[in-house]
């Protein structure tokens, strides 16, 4: 929603090489390598069978090892005084405490007793109170306009009867985000201070973001117990990495003058960190906070599968009875929450960038803290009002609106009138593109592919990158995941191509037209936060289960970064360069292709990188419509509670992501050098 930071950072440094030798070699290297590959693929089958299908006898039984390790951690691991499980349960209880408080405030009220025998002592904040407080926060952060926007978002929740569920979701977000921010900040600071720690942390962050959540859901459940706490832990694993990354980046970009100043006035190490560095990096850090919020909201559906409840559960339940309207309403409620929280955090980020307006004068509590005072007043007034008029406490059902069966009817109408046309399109793409490509990829020898990837790594980033890429690709084959991995690569590859074909031109169009860009932003914000499950079922109705449906779901999600980074790149092009081009008599077309797109290429490549990451993160969802890839493997492992199997498949997905990321980043670096 904001200019999102790259998920994965490039680590490779360009290798200086003698340019003339390099180009001469490059000219011959690729054709030769490709020719060798094709020859080997066509005729190598008899020579080296092992290179085509990895011999079972040499497979690394990683799944079994991981399964055993989890069992050991669960049953035996001990620190002497307490066991590992005691530790994780202790952490779970610490997280549970603020969650109970938040849930009590927003949803259940103050209860005494447990379970159904609990008696409500004090009612929760009424809808009116929450609405007013949110408006107040909006006003504090960004004035009247923002206040109106967030009120509208929360008003949507009230009006469409999503309030109770939305407050449950909000309660878990309210708990997860601060924990994610604090832990991420501390990790980032530690990595900034100790380079050794950074070297360990960065690959771990990569894995945390690329392993699908389903893969570690079972261990999380086992260690942290069933319920909202586990859901929060899973959310944290997924949402925390950007904060750590942003912190490292932000700390590095603090100007050295400021540090010198700190040294001059004699700061201790602690003062240096907390009084100088963190405050001066505040605006960058707020971007991290924003990312944590957005990613936490992305997790709502999955979290609801393991006991978080709330809006995610409503979406799932509605779609199980094929109530498309209800699913959409609950899905849009998640979008409304996301938009409100996103705009609020962005407004605070902007505010943090500006100098503080000075502390208002006055001695009284009210004049020193006008907003806090107003919030307290609201709580008291609405509490009393809620006691007197029940409708102010919980919004009466009779006033709620719903789209009812409208959306189901729309889908039905499309289905009856356009199915044949849609079917024709589907068949053409499926039979002429998807199926042949899938067969081709499945046919390639793994050993050859690994070698080619390593070669690409060597050309783009040197020996270290070659080694990394080669080993990761080999591990996918060695753990017996190669076949499923090719299906994964095929599905993601096709989707990424379509996403770029749609996204980049749209981005180019929108970059020059402000109005279009504003509308498009709304669309892509929705696409990014609307749970894909909501549109997946109507798509199934129109295109049946299978790869084509999966592809649509992936494209719908992965097109977002393709658009966003294209626009970002074009906006960043120095207007003076464009002006110079115009002065030299370039046509608008030349300006676009020869100047703007060339200069924006690194950003567009970063967008491609993100498109791939987004596509891979959708894999698990596509397993729900019957694809047969690594995502499905993870899903099966989840339903069989097979920790080892899930994590191995999850790691394979992560490896694919890391390989793609490193190669593209290295490529982008080279282009950036050439351009500058």
């Amino acid at each position, binding site marked *: 929603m904001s200019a999102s930071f790259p998920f994965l950072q490039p680590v490779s440094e360009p290798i200086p090489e003698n340019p003339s030798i390099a180009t001469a070699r490059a000219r011959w290297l690729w054709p030769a390598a490709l020719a060798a590959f094709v020859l080997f693929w066509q005729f190598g089958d008899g020579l080296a069978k092992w290179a085509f299908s990895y011999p079972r006898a040499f497979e690394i039984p990683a799944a079994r090892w991981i399964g055993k390790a989890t069992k050991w951690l669960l049953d035996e691991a001990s620190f002497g005084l307490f066991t590992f499980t005691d530790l994780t349960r202790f952490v779970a209880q610490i997280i549970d405490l603020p969650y109970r408080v938040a849930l009590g405030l927003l949803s*259940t009220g103050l209860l005494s007793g*447990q*379970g*159904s*025998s*609990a*008696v*409500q002592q004090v009612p929760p904040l009424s809808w009116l109170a929450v609405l007013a407080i949110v408006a107040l926060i909006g006003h504090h952060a960004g004035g009247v306009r923002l206040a109106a926007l967030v009120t509208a978002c929360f008003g949507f929740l009230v009006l469409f009867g999503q309030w*109770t*569920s939305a407050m*449950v979701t909000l309660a878990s977000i309210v708990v997860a985000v601060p924990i994610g921010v604090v832990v991420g900040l501390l990790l980032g600071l530690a990595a900034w201070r100790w380079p050794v720690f950074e070297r360990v942390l960065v690959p771990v962050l990569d894995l945390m973001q690329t392993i699908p959540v389903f893969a570690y*859901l*079972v261990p999380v*459940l*086992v260690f942290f*117990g*069933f*319920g909202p706490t586990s859901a929060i832990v899973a959310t944290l694993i997924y949402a925390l990495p950007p904060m750590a990354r942003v912190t490292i980046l932000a700390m590095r970009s603090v100007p050295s003058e400021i540090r010198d100043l700190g040294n001059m006035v004699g700061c201790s190490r602690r003062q240096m960190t907390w009084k100088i560095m963190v405050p001066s990096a505040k605006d960058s850090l707020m971007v991290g906070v924003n990312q944590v919020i957005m990613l936490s909201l992305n997790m709502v559906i999955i979290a*609801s*599968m*393991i*006991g978080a*409840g*709330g809006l995610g*559960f409503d979406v*799932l*339940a509605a*779609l*199980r*009875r*094929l109530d498309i309207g209800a699913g959409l309403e609950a899905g849009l409620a998640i979008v409304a929450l996301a938009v409100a929280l996103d705009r609020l955090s962005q407004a605070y980020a902007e505010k943090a960038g500006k100098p503080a307006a000075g502390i208002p004068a006055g001695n009284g509590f009210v004049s020193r803290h006008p907003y806090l005072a107003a919030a307290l007043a609201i709580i008291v007034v609405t509490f009393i009002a809620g006691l007197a008029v029940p409708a102010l406490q919980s919004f009466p059902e009779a006033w709620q609106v719903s789209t009812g069966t409208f959306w189901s009817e729309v889908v*039905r109408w499309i*289905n*009856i009138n356009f*199915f044949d046309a849609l079917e024709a399109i589907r*068949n053409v793409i*499926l039979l002429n593109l998807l*199926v042949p490509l899938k067969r081709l990829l499945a046919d390639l020898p793994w050993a050859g592919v690994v070698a080619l990837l390593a070669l690409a790594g060597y050309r783009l980033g040197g020996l270290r990158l070659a080694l990394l890429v080669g080993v990761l690709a080999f591990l996918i084959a060695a753990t017996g995941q190669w076949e499923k991995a090719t299906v994964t690569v095929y599905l993601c590859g096709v989707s990424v191509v379509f996403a770029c074909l749609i996204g980049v031109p749209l981005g180019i169009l929108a970059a020059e037209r402000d109005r279009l860009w504003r509308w498009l932003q709304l669309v892509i914000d929705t696409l990014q936060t609307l749970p894909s*499950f909501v549109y*997946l*079922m109507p798509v*199934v*109705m*129109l295109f*049946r*289960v*299978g790869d084509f449906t999966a592809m649509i779901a992936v494209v719908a999600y992965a097109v977002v970064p393709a658009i966003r980074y294209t626009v970002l790149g074009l906006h960043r092009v120095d207007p003076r360069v464009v002006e110079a081009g115009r002065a030299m008599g370039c046509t608008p077309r030349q300006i676009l292709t020869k100047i703007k797109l060339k200069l924006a290429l690194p950003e567009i490549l970063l967008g491609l990188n993100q498109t791939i990451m987004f596509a891979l993160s959708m894999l698990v969802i*596509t*397993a*729900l*419509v*019957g*694809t047969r890839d690594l995502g*499905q493997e993870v*899903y*099966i492992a*989840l*339903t*069989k*509670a097979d920790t080892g199997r899930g994590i191995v498949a999850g790691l394979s997905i992560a490896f694919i992501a890391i390989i793609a990321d490193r190669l593209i980043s290295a490529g982008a670096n080279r282009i950036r050098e050439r351009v500058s």
Partner: protein
Amino acid sequence: MFQPIRLSGMLAATLCLSAALTMAPARAQESTDPIKLTLHDWTGQLITTEIMGEVLKKAGYSVEYVQADYLAQFAGLETGDLHVAMEMWETTGRDAMDAATATGKVENFGETGMQAKEEWWYPDYMKEKCPGLPNWEALKSEACAEAFSIPETAPKGRYLGGPVTWGGFDDERVEALDLPFEVIHAGTDAALFAELESAYQRQAPILLWIYAPHWAPAKYKGEWVEFPPYSKECYTDPAVGVNPDAAYDCGKPFGPIWKVGWSGVKDKWPGAYAAIKAFNINNDEMGAMITKVDLDGKKVSEVVAEWMAANEPRWSGWIKK
């Protein structure tokens, strides 16, 4: 989903006060901790669970509903984080249940009284295109296969099976019975019914895996294919059945829907344990209730309250000392 539970929670709180006055002495030795019942994402299970919950509340127990994934919940049942799961289908949950009960930490609380049925199913209008149905042998004819085909599978017919995680041995069945069909697996049951809804709206051919109790057989008119009846030997011994060289040459098993739970329930809440074991409800009752919720748009809590009012002698028998 939340509102009904919470509302009924408040209601129950008041009920509990009155119940506690009369029941408290008898339950004095039992734990007052809440009994955690798991909720999944299909209506029938929500109804079953809420009926059990309401009954336990009437007996003076504190009850908490926790959302949990159908199969992932076993992790919680084993550790005692969760206590009772009201619907574990013989047909889909057997393996996970056996693995869990083998640890000794999970106990099978017996049958719910409902029978899970699942089989190949087709809408009524397909009978015109393939007149021999519901007899499975009709599917062997080329014309029938053609009628059920789509471009990718033609000339073979297309059968939409359940998610791979459900098992079901449909690939083996097609092989053993030599049916000219291709098995396509849906990823989730939501996808399964989305396809059925779509085909039914267009009166288009479809043959798929349907299970009951569920709202689909109530909403759509259709029939189950009649395969040779299931027997244990048919699945294990190739010699048994129509095809002497292959197993799985028969229909799918019918099976009870089980109640399972944490094995500590027995000692912690002996009275509740007895009540859960006594719980019993049949397919027709459940089918009617699911229809009321999913098709008539009533709330789960309303339907449960209706059932409670109409069946008071029955459930009070479950909680009798």
